[in-house]
């Protein structure tokens, strides 16, 4: 932790950046912090409770943050994939940012969760995560971490759902999605949802019905998952932010598995890598087209 604070202090004192975007303690665990004074750098922390994806603050639409000028951002491996996504899609310039990578051995689901990370409380998305440290970072801090171990198994949950018959699946999803109040927290917290005007906000024509009933919710969540196809960085923020507790990560994980199996694509923190939707190959499989 001292390593992180010293580095932040140095970056601010050398005027390499105007602000550090990192984490600090709060009475409910960790929360995002903007540090502009070198004297405040001792507030910076990082451990398994720092679950938030700070890349969500980097969208150019957030004018109040853009005003701060050059930023240094504390990123985990999954956050680095989001930064890479924003660079890939021309929302950011790599040279405008200093990236402080932190080695990560998995996080809990909520920042207020236990001080101990164990197989019970680790976030399901961290189980099976193979990236201990971001490769995109300028600086790398923290101790070497071992691969996270956990009991949750999203692939198992997916195959359980896949085993149901279509009618059961439809009523399962209708029922899960009927909890949605369309607060759009999932969209606001998502680092990759940066459209100036979202299709869900358009009223003429209203492609996605805005009232929170099953029909509109179904359309919204399927569209959301599709718009994130090959772009979702699996940071789990949508699911964490959802006040209705809808397992949104399952939809994203399903789509990630589809693009992995069809196009051999895994989301990476290499900004030069093309995404599967938006690129194509002449010999793509087309077994479903008559």
């Amino acid at each position, binding site marked *: 932790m001292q390593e992180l604070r010293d580095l932040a202090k140095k970056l601010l004192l050398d005027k390499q950046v105007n602000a550090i975007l990192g984490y600090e303690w709060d009475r409910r665990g960790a929360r995002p912090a903007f540090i502009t004074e070198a004297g405040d750098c001792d507030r910076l922390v990082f451990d398994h409770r720092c679950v938030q994806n700070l890349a969500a603050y980097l969208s150019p639409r957030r004018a109040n943050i853009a005003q701060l000028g050059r930023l240094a951002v504390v990123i985990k491996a999954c956050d680095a994939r989001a930064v890479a996504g924003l660079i890939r899609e021309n929302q950011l310039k790599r040279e405008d940012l200093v990236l402080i990578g932190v080695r990560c051995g998995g996080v809990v689901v909520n920042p207020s969760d236990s001080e101990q990370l164990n197989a019970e409380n680790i976030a399901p998305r961290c189980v099976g995560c193979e990236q201990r440290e971001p490769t995109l970072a300028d600086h790398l801090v923290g101790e070497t971490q071992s691969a996270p171990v956990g009991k949750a198994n999203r692939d198992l949950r997916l195959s359980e759902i896949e085993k149901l018959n279509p009618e059961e699946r439809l009523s399962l*999803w209708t029922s*899960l999605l009927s909890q949605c109040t369309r607060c759009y927290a999932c969209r606001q917290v998502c680092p990759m949802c940066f459209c100036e005007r979202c*299709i869900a906000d358009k009223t003429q024509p209203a492609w996605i019905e805005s009232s929170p009933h099953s029909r509109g919710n179904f359309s919204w969540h*399927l569209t959301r998952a599709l718009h994130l196809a090959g772009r979702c960085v699996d940071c789990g923020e949508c699911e964490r932010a959802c006040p209705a507790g809808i397992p949104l990560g399952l939809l994203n994980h399903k*789509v990630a598995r*589809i693009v992995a199996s069809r196009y051999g694509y895994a989301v990476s923190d290499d900004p030069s890598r093309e995404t599967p*939707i938006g690129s*194509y190959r002449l010999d793509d499989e087309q077994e*479903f087209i008559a």
Partner: protein
Amino acid sequence: MSDLFEPNIVAFVCNWCTYTGADLAGTSRLTMAPNVRIIRLPCTGRIDTLFILKAFERGADGVIVSGCHPADCHYTAGNYHARRRFAVFRELMEFAGIDPQRVTFSWVSASEGGKWAEVVNNATEQVRRLGPFQKYPSPAAHAGEIACKS
């Protein structure tokens, strides 16, 4: 009146190949099922997955998506992009519980009037077998009314 179920099917077709192909089927006086309503778009690349969802929302029992064969796209690559998009959409749709048999994808060129008639007849037969699509989520389907099975 027969009590045979007559499905409503919406076809999203590209202007350059399938629409012209469907026109050819008409001018060639081919007989085909009258259940399909055609919506003409510039290219399969213009067909958003939301069009398909919207068709189901508004009561369609089935959807056909059709455009130029690979390498024939008027805009060079629209159908290649569409192919990827629909491949992912189709699998996600299946995961969400919409029977993929309700959505037919095909390539029909401007000279394939006969193939279009075949696509229309097959899709109509297939959707007729599946029956009306009443299960698509409706505004009435709220938490309390649907037993969560998991």
